[in-house]
């Protein structure tokens, strides 16, 4: 179902769910890489991507990768929504990507991570935009 087709009584719960997704995955999937200078040293970029993608969410000793988080928080209700489909594609590519590749390959991985962050934010914003007129 596309987000615009979600029934109004399910929106509250969906907005909260997408808020969690935006925070847990979207915020941390490129957290460390963002702090690197524009043309980062490949070793520094590799280390940042490892932290961002393999240890995206940390709770004490518990660690979750970006794709594990996506599987846990993926809004099943939105199967077929283009935003979710795009995220499926990006996360699948990230999981398959090697972090030992060339600087150019690492740059592609970093771009994909940024795309995931943007996708999570957009999904949440779209859901909130639907909810707000109802609140108002």
């Amino acid at each position, binding site marked *: 179902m596309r987000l615009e087709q979600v029934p109004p009584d399910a929106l509250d719960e969906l907005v*909260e769910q997408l*808020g*969690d997704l*935006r*925070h847990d995955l*979207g*915020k*941390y999937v490129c*957290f*460390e890489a*963002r*702090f*690197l*200078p524009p043309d980062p040293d490949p070793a520094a970029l590799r280390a940042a991507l490892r*932290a961002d993608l393999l240890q995206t969410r*940390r*709770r004490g000793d518990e660690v979750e990768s970006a794709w594990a988080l996506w599987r846990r928080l993926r809004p099943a209700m939105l199967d077929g929504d283009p935003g979710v489909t795009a995220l499926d594609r990006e996360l699948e590519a990230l999981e398959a990507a090697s972090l030992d590749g060339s600087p150019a390959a690492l740059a592609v991985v970093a771009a994909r991570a940024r795309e995931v*962050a943007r996708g999570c*934010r957009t999904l*949440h*914003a779209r859901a*909130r935009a639907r909810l707000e007129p109802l609140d108002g």
Partner: protein
Amino acid sequence: MADILVVDDQDRTIALCQRVMPEHRWMGPARSWADGRAHLSRHGPPDLVLLDLHFDLPAEHLLGLPAEPTPRELRQAQRTQGAEILAALRERWPDLPVVLMTARGEGLERMADRLHAQEYTYFLDDEDLDARALRAQVEGILQARRGREQEGPIYWGRTLALRRIRQRLSVLARGRLPVLLGGPTGTGKSLIARHFVHPRSRRKGRFVAVDLSTLPRDLVAAQLFGAVRGAYTGSVADRKGAFEEADGGTLFLDEIGNLGEDVQRMLLAVLQERVVTRVGDTRERPVDVKLVVATHEDLGELVQQGRFRADLYMRLNPAATVRLPPLEERRDDLRPLVRFVVERIGAEAHLVELVEEYRARVGLPVGEADLGLQAVLGDDLPPARANRQLLLLPPRTLALLDAHRWPGNLRELAMTIENAATLALAEAIEAGRPPGVGPAQGRADVLQVRPKLMRDLLQATAPAGAADQELDGVPRATVEITPAADTRAASQELERQVYEQLFFRTGGDFSAMAATLLGDPDGALRVRNRFNALGLRATDLRPQIE
């Protein structure tokens, strides 16, 4: 360098901050409000708090939860925990700058009542955050705060009481009524009159200060109100008094309690009529001054004793008296004050010269320390930078400052720190090398104020009767020595008293005693042997331990 506390359940924000801004001291992360509160109680408020909004904590560590929360209530409390922490923080530290890290669209509007989004709360969108944005935000806040706090030589500090005094003085400075400053000597009354009240009085005239405790009594009237030629022996020409000099500006009369009865009467007339008459003259001259008076005495009590006129006292606006607290009541401010003093004196010409001389001796670039002298308190040294010279006060030196009672207040503190910096520099210049031992680890950019130097300085300024104070954690003991006394026995008696007091204080823990006496907790056996040799018996003393 600023102290910044990170309150966040994750480690990665602080790690990034440390990487991006290594010049600051990053503390934490405090992972919950309980952690944060404990940190603040132990170390005092920092310069800035970086607070996350979302905390993945179990219910028992969250604020603002109902007794038996539903899973949804728990999730919501986790998502907005930063707002609850901010509200708790604001109860005790209403104007501590706090940066709340939150993304747009996290429902901030629903927590508006808990955000206290007044002047000192800032929001940082941490979704698109990068090194430059983080640095710009943090530096911007710190700079604004420095601008507010560093008003000339005055450090207002972080205590609520001082902030209230500052607000009150701002209001009183603009009014027409006199300002009466009380408080012990050395608390900064004269600095505040000159650098705070006068600039805020919006008056164009001069600031004129008269210290009534140093003027010969028979010249006070002429100094204050002026005199005509021949009014008294040696008065060879007409002269203006302080009131006329300060016309249109501010007149500060320090130690007003020293005024004699006749001058009190003349002063009262000036305050009532707003005119002065020079000594020996009959002509009245209008004056318009903002009057600020100060005293370390209780003027109300002087009135009771008949030493100060009640009508003059009432004219001095006693209801609005501003009492500046002694340093003893501003313990939270001690360390920031040390930093403040070091930065200020570091800009003084004689210290700049000494720093340059030292840097030349140890082979550091000369003329590049444009950040000046900066204090490092404790043993957490920041990385070396070419453009600053650090003055390290290691933990044992700080313990001496903490234990001192500062009877001379801010004046004493400023003099002690200036002496310490000067002597530490002189020692290092003479040695021709940086301190080779201790926490400075031989770094040429770090000068060190050794505990012994600080102890000597504090002893020199300790008031009479300070012998019963303790220094560096070691209790003081006293013994009377008569001319015929055996000095060796007296020395042993002193030592015995110190050991006995330490025994009680440490609850009979010889390792703790060794840590204090020898700086080495492993020296317990040595301390125990000496304890026994002094005739003390642990088994006799233990029952007396409270």
